């Protein structure tokens, strides 16, 4: 078994952005200092995560108990960093730096109101995200999961108009409703069944529990639907609703942090709560597979019909999230590895796409796919990055998305699930169908007659274009240098 290192690093990594929030409020009139605080926090956070990396890659785990639990009374609140948590923390904390830069460009570019509140809650959300990544047991996971739902609500409803109110209502109704209605009872039921153990360490929590197939299925469904941030149908509608948020929020939270927290929780449920062996014995994971497969196909079909660019991206996200759920529900080592890798690959690809959508809005005020004709000439960097992001999400070389899809398909073949393998292939084609017309339209269709022909390049502010270029390059680099990801995911699947 892997050896344990006790260190408070996970706590500090988590606190780095939480402590920044009061500082951001304090500097609300010193705009430079306020923005600087965000950056300092982001770099400190990333640095702390990096500091833990060597320990993790050497096959150890880091543990830190925040509040002691009393045996049989209640679980402790503890952090435990393993390969999967590390992977997710790396993705979230590195992309926060980029997003901060982007957010400053975007928010200032549009003269948004209440920017202080925006940056403060953004920082809190990141703390909650890392809390989920480093959670050492189900209770801690749930705690930060709820914190994230609540901390992101002011971000989603940032515009404070009617649309935002509706979006915010949908957002909270789905997220809180399912987490209280399904996940909480499932959590307590697990606690009872396992005899007072919720820890992710060692064997899976329910590995030796006395659980029938019917009970197992209900519990599994309660968990998967309870963590509805994973966006499995029929609990997906909050995601398109949350697109009323400013684009930096959509980019980081609704392509990376929030939704990935959802699938992260589902992966934990499969690997650490039930354990692959128990699920294979019960044979209930197939139900989740088919729900996820349904979500993949249907959301891709819906995405095709969306003219609003951000909504199209939102439905694409729903589909990609279910890739991950589908992968882990296949229960084969390669598919689980692919799922974990897809968290990172999709994060880089999708955040690029959202950044592009925001940059287009900042530069031209356009929100709809049908308005994008000819934009490739005026915004070549943005649209180029968009093309790379689309390639990565679709899984076209040389982008990172190909690798994770390769592992997912490999895993499906291992599991002898050829129908589900076909789902992956068909949906990849569908991804291409809803993304490449956008690229084609931008580069090869002439600008509409009515618009004054703009000469030369008119990009969004540098603070917007630079981040999206970075993430686009990141997507490509992940294809050539996936070593670290593979290593981290192997740690997890090897341990099973």
């Amino acid at each position, binding site marked *: 078994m892997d050896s344990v290192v006790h260190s408070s690093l996970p706590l500090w990594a988590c606190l780095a952005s939480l402590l920044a929030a009061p500082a951001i409020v304090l500097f609300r*009139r010193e705009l430079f200092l306020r923005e600087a605080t965000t950056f300092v926090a982001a770099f400190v956070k990333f640095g702390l995560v990096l500091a833990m990396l060597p320990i993790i890659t050497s096959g150890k785990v880091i543990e830190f108990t925040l*509040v002691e639990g009393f045996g049989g*009374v209640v679980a402790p609140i503890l952090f435990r960093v393993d390969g999967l948590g590390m992977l997710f923390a790396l993705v979230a904390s590195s992309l926060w730096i980029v997003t901060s830069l982007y957010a400053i460009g975007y928010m200032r570019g549009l003269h948004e109101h209440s920017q202080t509140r925006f940056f403060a809650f953004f920082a809190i959300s990141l703390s909650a995200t890392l809390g989920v990544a480093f959670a050492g047991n189900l209770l801690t996971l749930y705690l930060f999961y709820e914190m994230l739902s609540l901390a992101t609500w002011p971000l989603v409803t940032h515009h404070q108009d009617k649309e935002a109110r509706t979006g915010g209502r949908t957002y909270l109704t789905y997220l*809180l409703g399912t987490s209280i209605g399904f996940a*909480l009872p499932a959590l307590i*039921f697990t606690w009872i069944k396992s005899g007072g153990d919720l820890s992710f360490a060692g064997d899976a929590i329910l590995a030796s529990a006395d659980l029938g197939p019917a009970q197992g299925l209900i519990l599994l469904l309660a968990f998967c639907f309870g963590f509805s941030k994973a966006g499995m149908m029929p609990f997906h509608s909050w995601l398109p609703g949350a697109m009323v948020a400013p684009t930096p929020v959509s980019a980081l939270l609704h392509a990376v942090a929030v939704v990935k927290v959802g699938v992260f929780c589902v992966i934990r449920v499969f690997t650490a709560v039930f354990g692959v062996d128990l699920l294979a014995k019960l044979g209930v994971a197939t139900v989740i597979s088919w729900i996820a497969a349904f979500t993949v196909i249907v959301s891709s079909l819906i995405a095709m019909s969306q003219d609003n660019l951000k909504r199209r991206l939102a439905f694409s996200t729903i589909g990609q999230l279910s890739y991950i759920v589908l992968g882990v529900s296949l229960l084969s080592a390669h598919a689980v590895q692919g799922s974990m890798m897809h968290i990172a690959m999709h994060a880089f690809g999708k955040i690029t796409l959202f950044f592009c959508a925001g940059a287009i809005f900042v530069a031209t005020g356009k929100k709809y796919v049908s308005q994008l004709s000819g934009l490739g000439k005026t915004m070549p960097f943005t649209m180029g990055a968009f093309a790379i992001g689309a390639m990565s999400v679709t899984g076209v070389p040389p982008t990172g998305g190909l690798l994770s899809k390769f592992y997912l398909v490999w895993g499906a073949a291992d599991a002898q699930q050829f129908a589900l393998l076909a789902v992956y292939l068909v949906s990849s084609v569908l991804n291409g169908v809803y993304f490449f017309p956008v690229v084609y339209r931008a580069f090869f269709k002439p600008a509409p007659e009515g618009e004054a022909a703009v000469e030369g390049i008119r990009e969004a502010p540098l603070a917007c274009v630079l981040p999206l270029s970075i993430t686009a390059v990141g997507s490509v680099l992940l294809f050539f240098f996936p070593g670290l990801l593979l290593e981290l995911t192997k740690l997890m699947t090897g341990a099973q």
Partner: protein
Amino acid sequence: MSEQLPAIILLAPLFGALLTGLAGNRDHRRCFPILISALAVSFGCAIALLVQVSQSGPIDYFVGGWNTERVPLGVGIQLRIDALNALLLVVITTVALLTAVYSFRRAGEENTEKTPQFYMLFQMLCVGLLGITVTADAFNLFVLVEVSSLTSYALVAMGSKSRGTVAAFNYLIMGTVGASFYLLGVGYLYMQTGTLNMAAIHEILADPAFGKSSTVFVAFILILVGVWIKMAFFPLYGWLPNAYSYCPSTTSCLLAPLMTKVSVYVMIRVMLSIFGADWVFQSLGWSHTVVWLAVIAILAGSVLALAQVELKKMLCYLIVAEVGYMVGGAWLANHWGMVGAIYHILADAFMTLCLFIAANIFIKHCRADRIDQLEGLFKRMPLTSTGFVVGALAMIGVPPTAGFFSKWYLLRGGIESGQWGYVIALLVSSLVNAVLFFRIIEIAYFGKNPAESHDHAHDEDSHQGQAGEATLLGGEGRPATVIPLLITAAIVILLGVFNAPVVEIIQQALEGMPVVGAAAAAR
């Protein structure tokens, strides 16, 4: 000295009340220091007792030295402090102290010429509540219930609103009916056992011969109904919403967190210490029925809360639902249900206090007692709003607040005993609370009429310069009202984060009343 603590905790507010009457009438400014010091003494005693009890077990205190060596148990007045009521003593004194701080100048404004009277009643109410908690005698319990009830009728009636007087009258009638039921029940018990001491009654009733005794049965039902009226258990809740929402704000902060919770404590005490869980859960066997009543109480309270337009009324109906939580938990007839019910007494006291203080500040400073008048509150009063939001999240049951962990234990009890109706009712009520509070938070955050679209892009940071200075804390209430609120909010969170030691103490208390374990094992 330390062996006299059980008496001092009662005597401090009693003499405080006396002193307030003597010294405060001439100069109203003397009342407040007397109140604070009396309650601080009680608070200190409560903490000391809790430490003492958790280390060395229950304390028996015989008032006036009537100990069992000279006379049989039950002749003298006995106070008994175990882990359960030591915890409750801390809660009562903390809530009273925080409310006292909150009342600074506030009580004077609300009852200008009656300030000393108000503070006398305040302290007498504390004597009553603390007395109910520490007594080990079924009849003394009645006396102390009357002490607390009579003072609370007067406190409610002190409001300047005429509706308050009507509500107080209604409260008085219902309260007296409840107390009479209780007294009648104690009478039947005395008839059967010939003693009024709780431990002595328990010993006698342990004889299986009483298992089917209809006298004992009638006694239990009468006591139970009496206590249910006092705690506003659905459908006996009619007096509560008006009494708590039309009374002076300090009164509502004191009564709402404490009265119903102490009554729940009385029920648990009667069930465990007088009749014994074996008798209650096995000979009587009403567990399922009462849990279903609790389910109805929870759902009805939630739905009625949803229908309210006034903030305080809404909170009052939430209390009705919360009482359902606790009664249901106590009647689940298993260990974790009882732990959850007791933990919820503590948690709910602070949650309710938090919300009532916040609501009273809103009402005072915004002149808004309706929910839809709370627009734009978050900008004007960020600190008060923070307190309110913490209370709201605790009511919804978001970790790591105390409200989450009480749900955790109650749900665990519900699942273990297979009472799925209760489990579902708890979850539904959490969701309804989420709707209730986010409706308010939404109004406070968005304003009533949100702008039509977000194209009204304006750079607020540029003109925030002068306006921001005035608005950041300028709209807040007085420090004397906001500080207790923030302390309460902190307690709500800390009680949740560090719930394990508290639950250890509760479990220690239940070891002293072994019955829950026995009943659970027999299932």
